[in-house]
């Protein structure tokens, strides 16, 4: 693939590694799939390896895992109460998957799984289907109380319910677009500034001096991207908890 090395979009290309065609559909094992497997593998491997000792006084790695566990558990308990703790494995998986996927994407030449809208949208739809599925299973028709806020005059009710439904439907959109846009924009910005360094230094000594500024910018952006990677995983997990709260306690907001 002889493309311009400074092309900022090139890093998001998806290409099949193992082409698989089933019934005319493309099930190829792509680089995206490879990094998803790697994300899941790294997460599971790290947790398995770090808790291997099961020390009462945790080792460094074990305390990292314990901190992540307690962090997620507190987050879920705060948002959805004790009754929401049944979703802990789900929330923990989502949180660690996004966190590790974002962080793996920070390695040079690595693919960022969460920079593709379809991946984040699939995650968001997973959350919403759990919310709707569990809500209807647990509360039946009463689950639809989420769409009916209290203290609204009867005349305005159809309008308000319609708006609430649209608001509810917009949740997976905002959830997925936020994560995807942050990762995509961050990686493009980083690549653009790094690309300035490459292009400028091709102009001789003056260019090399001029490339110091974008280089500093790229360094600063790298730090920012690490922050964004963690922050967006956290935001996704917190909102997941809040939405799960609707499934556990419908009509309570």
């Amino acid at each position, binding site marked *: 693939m002889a493309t311009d090395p400074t092309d900022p979009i090139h890093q998001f290309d998806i290409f099949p590694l193992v082409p698989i065609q089933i019934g005319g559909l493309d099930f190829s094992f792509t680089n995206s799939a490879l990094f998803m497997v790697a994300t899941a593998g790294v997460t599971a491997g790290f947790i398995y390896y770090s808790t291997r000792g099961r020390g009462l006084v945790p080792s460094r790695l074990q305390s990292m895992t314990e901190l992540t566990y307690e962090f997620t558990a507190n987050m879920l308990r*705060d948002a959805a109460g004790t009754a929401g703790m049944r979703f802990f494995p789900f929330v923990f998986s989502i949180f660690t998957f996004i966190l590790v996927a974002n962080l793996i994407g920070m390695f040079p030449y690595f693919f960022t799984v969460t920079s593709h809208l379809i991946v984040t949208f699939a995650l968001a739809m997973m959350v919403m289907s759990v919310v709707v599925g569990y809500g209807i299973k647990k509360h039946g028709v009463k689950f639809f109380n989420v769409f009916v806020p209290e203290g609204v005059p009867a005349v305005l009710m159809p309008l308000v319910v319609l*708006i609430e439904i649209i608001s509810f439907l917009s949740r997976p959109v905002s959830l997925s677009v936020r994560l995807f846009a942050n990762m995509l924009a961050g990686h493009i910005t980083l690549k653009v500034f790094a690309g300035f360094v490459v292009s400028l230094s091709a102009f001789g000594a003056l260019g090399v001096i001029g490339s110091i500024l974008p280089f500093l910018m790229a360094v600063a952006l790298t730090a920012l991207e690490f922050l*964004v990677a963690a922050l967006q995983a956290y935001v996704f997990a917190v909102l997941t908890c809040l939405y799960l709260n609707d499934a556990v*306690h419908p009509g309570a*907001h």
Partner: protein
Amino acid sequence: MSPANEDDSKSNHETGYEPPATKRTPEEWAERRSALEAKLAARNATRELEAKRSSGSGSSMKGIAEGLKLASEFAAGIIVGGGIGFVIDKYAGTSPFGLIVFLMFGFAAGIRNVLRSVGPKPANPLEGRENSGRPPENAKDS
């Protein structure tokens, strides 16, 4: 600080210079402890307030994250509303009124999203929630 508190602190100050031989009754100890606790609480409260103020103005990163979050909430409402309108137009042949009307509903839903994520969370009347004294949700997810 209330006059009672001041009084306590004065007596604490005085007892600091007294020889430890003076026996205190349990009531005096309890009084002393409650006075100290009140002082500590007051000091912690001001410290937390200061920390909150400095973090609020100092980190623009938090503000950027919050702003992006609200923008995406708002945009998502409009996108979904417009999408519903577009689909209705396509299948019912009411173009362009479905799009117009549902774009407005989407706008309202977007505002609703923003208000929900900024505004204080009303207390949950149902069981299983121990977070009555906690800050509203927007304080946590940015």
